[in-house]
């Protein structure tokens, strides 16, 4: 195990803990937008696609697979945030 790996594990543990604490406080009423919002955030894999794409441009197969990943992640980000906004708009106008 490298030191970097352990350091990353520590970050993982802390992020999970903070996430758990904050999300536990979200009321039932908002659970559906919470899920579509987390869909959008899980599109963060796009970052990985951006990072590795320049390394694979010479291999047609791998390039295509990265592009599939990039496409999926982008749909998640844009679709997820947009539908979450649509739902939260409905809750907002109640105020």
């Amino acid at each position, binding site marked *: 195990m490298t030191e970097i790996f352990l350091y*990353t594990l520590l970050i993982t543990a802390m992020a999970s803990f903070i996430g758990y604490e904050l999300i536990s406080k979200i*009321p039932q009423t908002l659970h559906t*937008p919470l899920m579509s919002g987390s869909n959008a955030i899980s599109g963060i*894999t796009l970052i990985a696609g951006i990072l590795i794409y*320049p390394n694979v441009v010479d291999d047609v197969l791998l390039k295509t*697979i990265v592009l599939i990943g990039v496409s999926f992640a982008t749909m998640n980000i844009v679709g997820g945030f947009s539908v979450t906004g649509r739902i939260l708009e409905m809750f907002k106008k109640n105020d």
Partner: protein
Amino acid sequence: MTESLYLISAVLFIFALKLFSRPSTAFRANNLAIGGMVLAIISAFNLKFADYDVVFYLVILVSAGLGVVVSNRVQMTQMPELVGIFNGLGGGASGAIAYVELSNSTLVLSDFSVAIFSMTIGVFTFSGSLIAVAKLRGKLNSFNATVINILSGVLLVGVITMLTTKIDYSTEYIIILSLLLGITRVVLIGGADMPVVIAFLNSLSGIAAMAAGFIVNSIILIIAGALVGASGIILTLLMCSAMNRTIYQVLKGGFGTTKINNEYEKDPISTSAEDIAIQLSYADSVVIVPGYGMAVAQAQSAVKELTNTLKSKNIEVKFAIHPVAGRMPGHMNVLLAEVDIDYEDMFTLEDINSEFSATDVVLVIGANDVVNPLARTDEDSPIYGMPILDVDMAKQVVVIKRSMSPGYAGIANPLFIEENTKMLFADAKEGLENIVKSFELV
């Protein structure tokens, strides 16, 4: 520089979750999260925009366009399917990235294991989610549970063996096995268990992204993935405890398929829309319990109309929402919010259960198992111990339902034949519209 930008976007995500705790601030939370995402994407390019060809930008542009179109066209009743598709896309994206990293780079052992893990989870989430969406759309029905459970067990052992032995299996085999595992695992789970499945797959899509973060050494992927993973796990546990079942019991599938005696000792009291209108007009307090039947019938607007009518007669109206009502967490709340019903009027099981005894009329719309008193009394019942809405404590109960057919658990509901219960056999939308019409005549 790039690293500190990532840090800011992580902080934005965390603040967004904090603001998500209230309906009034949640809209701002979404915008904060968008800001965090945009910042992360810009940082990832690291000003080297020229390193990417036209195809890359084109793929992003077209996918983004598709995302906008789909998210604007989807009906609120279809949210479970949409979230199911997004879960699958998230898993698929991480699986694809992990596969490419496994094929392209020489990874150190720890990263290699994480990459295999990310790929397996990602691919499982992808195929499992597609099956979940097909189940939600009612495209897949009964299968022989025993055969599929054995098949799925063999596949699981196969995947674990591949992952733990030193023999160099080709990654393609692992992909095929994970795909099949996702299909066989989800295909047996249906109907009212979907909230658990959707939340579980949601969590896995986050965990796959987090693992992908380890491979490409990206802190933002790890943090964002962990947040999504945590969110999904919390919802999974909440849904399980709302059904008094464990995640293992849910994933085993086949619930409600065993034949149980579901005959009724006597006939229910059937009523008409006119009678219900009269009954409601004498009430001071009404609690409405929406269920999946309301979503299927697209009856939200009719519910709103009835609510307006009742409120105009100074009758207090509240909504009691069981955590697993519908097909995903919070499904009913969104449908009611869509028709402008105030979220202050929506109550959780814990908040409303003590109030039923003081309620004049409870109106159950297309819900069944979540109001079945057997959960409190019959130890042999498959739903025994599940927290239910105690609507039978109310002075009068009206159930709008198409027939006496059992709910997902496959058991009879003695609430329907109780003396203070009246049944309106109708489609939820039609039934409610008729009640509203009858009010004009009362």
